[in-house]
């Protein structure tokens, strides 16, 4: 049985974050579950694990709240064994229709937020001889889709900084690892799903396609399992003493197969498949709708 670890997780109010906090707590670890609104969301997540779970406020876009969360961790445990950077949200919109503010906001959470968290965690981990940082990426980091371009950009950016810090922090015994969930039935497709202003106002050039694809994504998501598998996989990665952890762990049969399919095809094969397939759903419906318009220019 693994020793009791001290783990800090961001974005634990719902979904994979909440599941992971509770899974780790159920296994007897000390969990610092951070969220933006602990008064509202904390009790539900903490229920039953009051003894080994602290719920505290942390907004990854707010440095002072980050400092406070790490100060609490230092003070209470004097160390940090693992950090799970889970906080994040999805943006939905054509790239060029997303406003400067929309783009900045999602990067602030999904990418800069993780860098801020790692910057705060690394000194504590170094102090105690090492640690693990799990960064929650997405199936979208490798399957770049239309209408999710900015979101994909935050995740490919996250993949880049994770891989780089993995090399940079190795000297301190800190392992950085990417965990890639597929489509999971969580708030990600509803509450934490930020549709572009252009779409909300009904003025997107892709309005109809966007509506159709949004319905498809939500339909698929509603038939998917919840975040438990991701929670269990992350808890396993935190407990495993094997070294080193893989750089990237796709979680769920959809991500495993999608990554395998993408890796087996050249860029040309991949693009040809997208433009020619008769499959339905996201993203295929987009390509079906756009095929004719494209053909006018590219044959």
């Amino acid at each position, binding site marked *: 049985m693994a020793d009791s670890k001290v783990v800090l997780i961001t974005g634990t109010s719902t979904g994979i974050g909440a599941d992971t906090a509770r899974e780790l707590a159920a296994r007897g670890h000390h969990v610092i579950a951070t969220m933006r609104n602990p008064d509202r969301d904390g009790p539900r997540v903490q229920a039953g694990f009051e003894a080994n779970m602290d719920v505290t406020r942390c907004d990854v876009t707010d440095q002072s709240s980050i400092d406070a969360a790490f100060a609490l961790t230092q003070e209470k445990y004097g160390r940090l064994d693992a950090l799970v950077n889970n906080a994040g949200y999805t943006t939905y919109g054509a790239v060029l229709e997303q406003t400067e503010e929309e783009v900045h906001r999602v990067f602030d959470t999904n990418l800069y937020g993780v860098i801020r968290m790692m910057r705060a965690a690394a000194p504590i981990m170094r102090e105690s001889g090492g640690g693990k940082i799990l960064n929650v990426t997405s199936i979208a980091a490798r399957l770049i889709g239309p209408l999710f371009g900015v979101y994909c950009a935050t995740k490919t950016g996250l993949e880049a900084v994770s891989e780089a810090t993995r090399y940079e922090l190795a000297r301190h015994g800190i392992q950085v690892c990417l965990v890639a969930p597929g489509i999971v039935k969580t708030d990600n497709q509803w509450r934490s799903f930020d549709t572009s202003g252009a779409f909300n106002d009904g003025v997107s050039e892709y309005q109809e396609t966007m509506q159709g694809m949004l319905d498809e994504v939500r339909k*698929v998501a509603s*038939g*998917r*399992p919840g975040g*438990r*598998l991701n929670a*269990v*996989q992350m*808890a*396993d*990665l935190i*407990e*495993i*003493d*094997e070294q080193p*952890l*893989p750089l990237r*762990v*796709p979680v*769920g*049969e*959809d991500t*495993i*197969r999608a990554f*395998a399919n993408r*890796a087996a095809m050249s860029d040309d094969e991949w693009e040809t498949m997208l433009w020619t397939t008769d499959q339905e759903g996201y993203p295929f419906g987009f390509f079906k709708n756009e095929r004719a318009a494209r053909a006018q220019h590219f044959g």
Partner: protein
Amino acid sequence: MADPQVVLITGASQGFGAATARELAERGHTVIATMRNPDRDAPALIEGYTGRIYPQRLDVTDASMISAAVTAALDQHGRIDALINNAGVSLFGAVEEITDEELHHILDVNVVGAMRVIGAVAPSMRARCSGKIINVSSMAGLIGGPAVGGYCASKFALEAITEALRYELQPWSIQVVAVEPGVVNTEMLHGNLSAIASVREGRSRYQGPTEALIKGLRAAANRRQGPRSVASQLADLVEIAEPLPLRVPIGDDAIRISQQRGLMTDDEWEGFLTSLRDEGFPGSYFRVVEEQGVG
């Protein structure tokens, strides 16, 4: 929440089987949990899950018992939405010293056992044009290694069965999947570990490296996780509404190894595997061969 499913799972007394039965019950599904000795093993399993986990006596080597159990399950629950062929045994020891009986036994449980249960359940799935058959294979179904040849043979065979059956049952919309867990800390590697006679009796020509492999694998298992990831992955596969893939590796090690194996040629892979010297599979084996040589 996915609609409640009726799931029959074999080998549910402990390990992957028990964890999966409980995970499915937690999620509100009905589980027919089969095992060889329910009098001994069922009470612990169903505690807290009465009315959701139904224990059932079943030995996968006994065709008439399988047919009776499946009939009883269909009578009671009306249908079986998913079958999880999980029952299995291990076999450690060099290929040179495996006896006919030992090889026949592992095939009879791990391969023919699964085929028997499939044969009993498939007609009812065909009648409804729906169902899922999930075969619990192993990383040993995708890669071979020293001192586990008999086990690899059974799991390679199960992989082939899965793939062929997938095509055969497709027309009735029955999905067939193999899952490949990596090294997981279960009784399979501890109390239930089974080795060939020559190893048990300490007279194997490969005694040193085989014992080192078992010891290394146990140590690796102790460092690693329990069966929860297997349980949640299997429960997800039962619930998922979209088409399922042919193979699903489970756990960071299995995902990583299946990807690496896929990218390497036979020569590259062999070079990589035989270079391993770490504690566990197969490094422990090669390390002892290197240190002690062979007789």
